[in-house]
């Protein structure tokens, strides 16, 4: 236990790691604050959910539309003219005229504008989802990714399952729940792509640095001849491994905790935790996000965090093996980074006609870099339902095997 604690101390008290952590966190805060212009506008969703409930039913939508009509009447009183939409009014208004209205009236106008936008999205949900033909999308994807032969068969088979899931989602009405308007604010992209990809890379840098540091410490300090000749001997490496994993866990927790904490302080998600992540409002690009399971936003976030934790631990363990093999932290760092990138690029070296193309995607690097599309059936070549758990299980097995082999090799190796 004492050895374990002392090993942890090496990492915790390292000024460089602390400095890097602070720098990264500061950088993340900067990203959050830079994109917080519309945080006040986002609150509209909370109001809507409070008044009309989380699910969009025909009656609640009707009520919402009626209220907008009432607001338009108010607008008529304000301006003395009848408008069908507040946008018509704002269009012929120049800045000076707009400034003449009081702050309250301005807030009313912009609030009405946002409400109208939500209304127009909500009332066109059915229409937009009817246009989606998953089977046709599959054919398009075959062409887009130039799949043929076995790969095309596999893709289409999975796509068929996804068609069923899509119909089921529509029947459940998962898409008819209020969420921040995707095409206006891109909140899913901001959180899961911009922020999470930054955090992932930062966590990986810190974890790889600390793991290589711990694993090669004795060799680099030239204390290995003493350390491995003690009674504890080469089993010291077990303590170091556990310390590396615990430190990886702590680093991940700290980075995620600080950045996400500030993110949710800045952006008020309090009303949308329960909203399904497949909500029609969460539709940002050509195709909406559609998850394989009925996941609420909170469940999706927890799932993503869980996947990230497990992946970081796996990467830490693999880095430990590499370091034990190379015995030099500098080279290990680059070898790990290079293997990460090579594994990530693996699918691009595969022929587009065989199933190897998909198998090559089941890697930890692909998993952590694909966070916005995890658990989704709308995420390109890694849209498989079993992608997450199969990747984690197979790589846990691989990591165990590699660790076992390197440890056995290390125990017998010649230490000079």
């Amino acid at each position, binding site marked *: 236990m004492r050895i374990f604690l002392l090993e942890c101390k090496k990492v915790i008290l390292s*000024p460089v790691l602390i*400095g890097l952590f602070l720098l990264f966190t500061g950088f993340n805060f900067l990203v959050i604050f830079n994109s917080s212009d519309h945080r006040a506008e986002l609150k509209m969703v909370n109001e809507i959910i409070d008044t009309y409930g989380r699910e969009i039913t025909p009656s609640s939508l009707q009520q919402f539309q009626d209220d907008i009509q009432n607001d338009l009447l108010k607008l008529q009183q304000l301006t003395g003219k009848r408008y069908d939409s507040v946008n018509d009014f704002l269009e012929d208004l120049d800045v000076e005229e707009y400034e003449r209205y009081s702050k309250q009236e301005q807030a009313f106008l912009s609030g009405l504008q946002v409400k109208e936008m939500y209304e127009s999205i909500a009332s066109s949900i059915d229409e937009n989802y009817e246009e989606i033909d998953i089977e046709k999308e599959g054919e398009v994807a075959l062409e887009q990714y130039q799949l043929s032969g076995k790969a095309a068969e596999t893709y289409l088979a999975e796509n068929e399952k996804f068609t069923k899931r899509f119909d089921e989602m529509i029947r459940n009405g998962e898409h008819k729940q209020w969420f921040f308007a995707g095409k206006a604010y891109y909140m899913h992209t901001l959180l899961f792509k911009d922020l999470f990809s930054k955090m992932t890379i930062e966590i990986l840098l810190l974890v790889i640095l600390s793991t*290589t*540091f711990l694993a090669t410490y004795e060799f680099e300090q*030239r204390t290995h001849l003493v350390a491995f000749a003690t009674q504890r001997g080469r089993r010291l490496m077990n303590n170091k491994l556990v310390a590396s994993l615990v430190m990886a866990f702590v680093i991940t927790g700290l980075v995620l905790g600080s950045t996400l904490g500030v993110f949710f302080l800045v952006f008020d998600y309090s009303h949308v935790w329960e909203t399904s992540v497949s909500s029609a409002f969460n539709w940002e690009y050509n195709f909406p996000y559609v998850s394989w399971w009925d996941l609420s936003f909170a469940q999706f976030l927890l799932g993503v965090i869980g996947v990230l934790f497990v992946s970081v631990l796996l990467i830490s363990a693999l880095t430990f093996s590499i370091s034990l093999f190379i015995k030099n*932290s500098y080279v290990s760092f*680059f070898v790990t980074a*290079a293997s990460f990138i090579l594994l990530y690029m693996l699918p691009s070296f595969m022929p587009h006609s065989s199933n190897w193309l998909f198998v090559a995607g089941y890697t930890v690097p692909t998993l952590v870099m694909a966070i916005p599309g995890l658990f989704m059936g709308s995420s390109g070549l890694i849209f498989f339902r079993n992608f997450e758990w199969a990747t984690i299980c197979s790589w846990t097995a691989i990591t165990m095997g590699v660790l076992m082999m390197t440890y056995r090799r290390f125990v017998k190796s010649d230490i000079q």
Partner: protein
Amino acid sequence: MQIVWNEIKKILTWKSLLLLLIINCILYFFLIDFYIKHFPNGRPALDSYRLGIEMIEKYGPTMDDEEFKDFMKTYEVRVKEADRYLQTEKVAVAEGIDTYEKFNSYEWFKASKEAGELRDRLFFEDGTDLFWELQERSRLIGFYEGKEMYSSNATPAQLKRYEELAKEGVFGTYPEVAISNFRDYITNVAVAILFSVVAVMSLAILRDRTRHIVSLQYTARKGRNLLKTKLLAGFVSTLLVITGLLVIYMGLYSLNDTSMYFNVRVNTFIGNESWYNPTFFQYILFTIGGIYLVGIVFGLAAMGFSTIVPNTLTLLGAQIPFVRAFSFSACTD
């Protein structure tokens, strides 16, 4: 001298060369490959590239008003060709787009299905470059006609420079595909080279310290002067690394085949107003000089870190923010 040579051998071992190879292969596929493989990138970039060469062959590296009038005349001739082409198409005649002018002003967003198919066929299937080329020609002419419009948020100094250029009769007339491709290419190459320099040079001085042989070295007759020799060896190795990589990357760049553009001055490419007016070739040389300069600065900085830090963890950790900030700013540039 002997010591310098031996120190260089310690820095450029086959292991570090292997590291260089790995780093550059990965960065090449991630950052650089695109600008070689996809040049010119689709249509109408290809037509832009071809037209630029045609202009240079016909009018030389500068164009005056007379020459541009001739260029516009060629456009008219090509438009007539397009007219004749459209008149042979039954669909075009039926839809009332039997001349290129009508074809251009046709309201495509509410076009009939036949007309849409015709357009796709003309552009993508018929194997004629005419319509792409006309688009590109009219874009170039548009730039020429708008040559006296300056960006509204130009600073006074920029406005003065624009007027200066206008007085000399220097306007952006040549298509910018070649130079913008080069600019994207060279920034990514610069990132790769800086990465390589830092990766190879970082260990230079720390290595001896972790081996605990410094006390031995400093008590030898050469004494503490050895540090200077090490720094010199590091400097030479930096130059070697940069030169080697630049030779390879410039060799790869020659695959883009842009040598026809070399004599065109930077300011005569569209949208390229710059403070100085070197030719494209001189511009390439300048950027290479810049890479050497920044590379040497980063190499020396890496050695500086290497002399201060206690271990490799600190060495890597301290340099991550710098390299990241630099490659980030270069990528967004």
